[in-house]
């Protein structure tokens, strides 16, 4: 090729590679300290913070729980969790609609995790962007409330495809809304045959203990 010519170069690189590298560093940090981490993803208002509170009650006295709250601007959720007397850190993402793994990594490096056995990361309320970005978690949990409609897995399949647990929340409201649980189960399973599905109501407590038992078992299985 002479000067000024055009040449085609093969790149073959995943675009989110830098995020993957930060996620791998988080995974290594967690694994070295035997901390089990959940990445909680949902639309705003689906019950992530409520699930975190239920987990805090369940793990009370069984080793430390630490929480990282992601939110675009506010500290409202972090304040709510702080009242439970656990270690909480807030990540305000500002223009970004998900937690960046590099940001989570630097927050984890600043935290005292010597007593921590369970790390709960509440991602920014959004079903699109958090699905694309791994945070080095052991399990990814997507929450879907019955008030959001049963088309979400068809509209946002990536988050259902990449999640280990699907939690259908606010099931006490099923008599009042149009929401076909079987339709959601079918779509989620088509995207991810291995997804474990739970139906819960934080209001009545229905299904909560099965979900908490499962998370406790997953936590215990991490060597």
């Amino acid at each position, binding site marked *: *090729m002479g*000067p*000024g*010519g*055009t*040449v*085609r*170069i*093969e*790149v*073959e*690189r*995943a*675009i*989110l*590679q*830098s995020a993957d590298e930060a996620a791998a560093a988080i995974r290594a940090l967690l694994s070295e300290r035997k901390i089990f981490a959940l990445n909680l993803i949902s639309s705003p208002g689906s019950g992530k913070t409520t699930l975190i509170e239920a987990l805090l009650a369940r793990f009370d006295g069984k080793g430390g729980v630490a929480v990282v709250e992601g939110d675009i601007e506010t500290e409202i959720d972090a304040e709510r969790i702080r009242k439970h007397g656990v270690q909480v850190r807030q990540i305000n993402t500002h*223009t*970004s*609609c998900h937690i960046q793994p590099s940001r989570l990594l630097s927050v984890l490096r600043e935290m005292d995790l010597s007593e921590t056995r369970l790390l709960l990361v509440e991602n920014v309320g959004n079903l*699109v*962007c958090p699905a*694309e970005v791994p945070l080095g978690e052991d399990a990814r949990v997507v929450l879907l409330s019955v008030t959001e409609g049963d088309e979400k*897995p*068809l509209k*946002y*399949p*990536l988050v259902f*495809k990449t999640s280990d647990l699907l939690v259908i929340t606010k099931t006490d409201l099923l008599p009042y809304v149009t929401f076909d649980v079987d339709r959601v189960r*079918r*779509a989620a*399973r*088509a*995207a991810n*045959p291995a997804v474990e599905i739970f139906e819960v109501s934080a209001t009545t407590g229905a299904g909560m203990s099965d979900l908490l038992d499962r998370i406790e078992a997953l936590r215990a299985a991490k060597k």
Partner: protein
Amino acid sequence: MHELGVAGEILDVVLSEADRHAAKKVTSIRLRVGVLRSIEPENLSFLFEHLARGTAAEGAFLEIVEEPVRIECEGCGVSEARAFKCECPRCHGPNVSVTGGDSLRILTLDIED
């Protein structure tokens, strides 16, 4: 504005590759984008053009190769689709597994030295 972050990531990779190959100018970028990535190609091109101003990738053409999902039906084998579906597009049977459609890769760059 989901595409803004993706456009920024693409530009980072493109500029570091351009640098590595001592390219003066990047003229064309070929991407493979899965249909599950919720990316609007026009929006991505617009944002990329904006971010690339004043860099070696200014004015580069983004060629987006769409990656479909593969729908594997128990009854009739594999079909492809441009959106996620939880039933077979041929027989409408519910026993399907859906794979692919989640790529987000840079395939090639055309550069001038």
